[in-house]
């Protein structure tokens, strides 16, 4: 049945303006249940969190157990708290380092695994192991691996004649130690996405380039990299979001120490809310982290595709 015939049949059935309005509304009705669930499980907690961030709710204070609106006072207190300000800087250093390293290592591993060597599937499966392990277990395991007294890493470094590094005790190394763990755990995620993208690239452009005498590096530079752009963007977006949300591994590894060398913003959301009972400030930290992620996501989505196009 061709389109004209279908349209004429539909018009015969109901040609009133209300019919077209109803048809326009149909998709909205169809997605309504899904949107309702999304609003309940996602939007409501976010909005409630924003509301709490504007109140003085404190679980350990009888007087403040019922929230009272205090405007932006919680944000003002956060942004004048030197410890919180310091943690914003640490969060950015942590996020930028882990995202960049994950992307680079993930792509390198994806290129290695994008071959048809016998047994490559075993390596592709093994590659996923770090993602499967829960972050707390990762944290505890690495805490033992790094331990200066009985850890495996310092032991082998000493065997190699390298100087003792106090991974979790030296403020200069602690953040690097935490970044290494995060990169170790999440590089396979980047690999997974980038490997899938590599395997979906069409052969024809490569064949054409070979006929034209393009070198391997040339094909990589002018064919592979541009074609991988959308996948890089996905990894970048998802890893940035994850990196700013990082909490559990860092908490188990260092609890933000030594001093405040590895204190990321989320540690403050946890401390204010769950340790100190100050839900107002805890929610304000969470909203702040959410805003940072939102701004960065918008930048990625708007700026990067434009640059890619140019």
């Amino acid at each position, binding site marked *: 049945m061709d389109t004209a015939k279908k349209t004429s049949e539909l018009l015969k059935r109901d040609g009133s303006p209300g019919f077209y309005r109803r048809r326009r509304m149909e998709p909205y009705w*169809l997605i309504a249940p899904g949107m309702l669930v999304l609003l309940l499980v996602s939007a409501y907690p976010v909005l409630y969190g924003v509301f709490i961030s504007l109140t003085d709710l404190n679980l350990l204070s009888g007087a403040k157990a019922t929230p009272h609106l205090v405007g932006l006072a919680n944000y003002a207190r956060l942004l004048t708290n030197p410890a919180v300000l310091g943690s914003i800087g640490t969060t950015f250093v942590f996020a930028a380092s882990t995202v960049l390293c994950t992307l680079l290592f993930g792509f390198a591993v994806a290129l290695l695994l994008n071959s048809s060597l016998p047994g490559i599937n075993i390596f592709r499966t093994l590659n996923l192991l770090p993602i499967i392990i829960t972050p707390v277990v990762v944290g505890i395991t690495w805490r033992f691996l790094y331990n200066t007294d009985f850890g495996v890493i310092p032991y082998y470094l000493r065997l190699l004649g390298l100087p003792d590094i106090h991974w979790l005790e030296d403020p200069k190394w602690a953040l690097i130690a935490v970044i290494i763990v995060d990169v170790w755990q999440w590089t396979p995620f980047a690999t997974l996405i980038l490997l899938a993208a590599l395997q979906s690239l069409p052969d024809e452009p490569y064949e054409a380039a070979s006929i034209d005498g393009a070198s391997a590096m040339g094909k990589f530079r002018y064919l592979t990299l541009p074609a991988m752009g959308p996948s890089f963007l996905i990894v970048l977006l998802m890893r940035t979001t994850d990196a700013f949300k990082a909490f559990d591994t860092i908490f188990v590894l260092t609890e933000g*120490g030594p001093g*405040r060398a590895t204190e990321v913003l989320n540690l403050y959301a946890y401390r204010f809310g769950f340790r100190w009972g100050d839900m107002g400030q805890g929610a304000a930290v969470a909203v702040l982290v959410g805003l940072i992620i939102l701004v960065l996501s918008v930048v990625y989505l708007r700026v990067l595709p434009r640059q890619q196009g140019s």
Partner: protein
Amino acid sequence: MNTTARSINRKQFLKGLAAVPAVALLDACVSATSQPVTPAPTQAPATSQPATPAPTQAPAPTATSAPAVASSRPFEGMKIHMALGDGTPGVQEKLNHLPEFEAETGIKVTFDWMPAGPLYEKSLLDFSQGTGIYDIVQTSSGWGAGFTNGKYLEPLDDYISDPELTNAQELDIEDILSLNLDVMTFGGKRYGFPHFGHANILIYRMDILDQLKLDIPKTFDQFEQVAQMITDAKLKTADGEQVYACALAGNASYFDRLVPVIKGMGGRMLDENKRPALTEKPALDALEWYARMIKKYSTPSSVNGGFIEMEQASQGGTCALMLDYGPFIEFTEDKKASKTVGLWALADHPTDGRPLKGCVYYSLWAFSMSAGSKNKKAAWKVLSWFSSRKLNDQLLAEGYLFRGMVTRKSESEAPGIKGQPWTEAAMRATQATDVEAIPRIPESKQLTDIAGAHMNAAITDLETPADAWQKASAEMDPILKDAGYYQ
């Protein structure tokens, strides 16, 4: 064929979609209307109570059918849920007697084990949200001020004085060392029963001090001299590992280990008006001393380490001195994990030469009842059994020795405890405590976290000790002001 399929997609799908909530609503209405019918007076109450015991057990008695049984087992079928701290010595040993208690009372006790951090957080969330999941929670005395301020704990005085609910002889409150009751008393009301207390103490390797002919250090200066001599001796373990003089807790979460050093040098955390007092000279000297002990004489992991690192070092024999709590000796004496069983002893925490009295911080693991418990009388029954002298005596009779701290007077006289080298030191430490060494105010957790972060920053050379305490005081100040302690 295609047309038919499309019409189903549009209209019937929408109709079906509308039918789903309608059916759900109908179902909910039917359930709601049918519920009151279930517990009809003629039916056994068990049908309306999901918490009914297993079919093999006797059915729950009703007031009309079996009044005699009901009065002897008034809590039959009730469920009490406890939140317990992982690895707390003595808890599992008490729970081993639970079947006898359950058989006697008909109360079913269930529990969740969790580490101390999540225990606090889960309890706080349960209390504040009024979910009433936990009837009884293991609480630290350090959390007591916040929990009672939030009105989350049930005062126990009325239950204690109710002869119908409490067997005073079995509970035997008079036998509990008064300090252990005092630390969980807020506003004149008791909010918890002690499981065991922690008083700061010196833990030392007897064999190493004997081998090097060293006396037990009594002052901070002597402690440093002994540490220096152990370091100079360059001792090795049987496995060839280096033996360090100390293992100490430098992690930010362990500010309470520094408190007896501050107190032992004449310092304090807050002054009498609750203003930060860490910038005073004694507190500064204390931080300088503690940081020096860690950097110069302790296992490398002490810098950012805590309990796990100290446990590993003591059990592996790579340290000779520790400043921690008395019950730590439970872990050095763990035959399954420790290579140094029988080599450790306890002595008084050093001071700068002043008497120990008032220099020791004391905290307590206690058991409290949630104010949101739906079965408070049954919860009290469990709590009073769990904290009773009768149960404690049973454990002692079975040979369970709780080393490092004494909670009841009767314990200190028990065979296997009386005359032990650690008993005397533990009793002295308990008598020397200042329960307000860390002020018992709702903000104490926040204050100790701040002080701990700067303590660790000084140990790791991120800040000088003077800077560390100045910054800590600056961060504490608005919190204390905001709480209304001063303007």
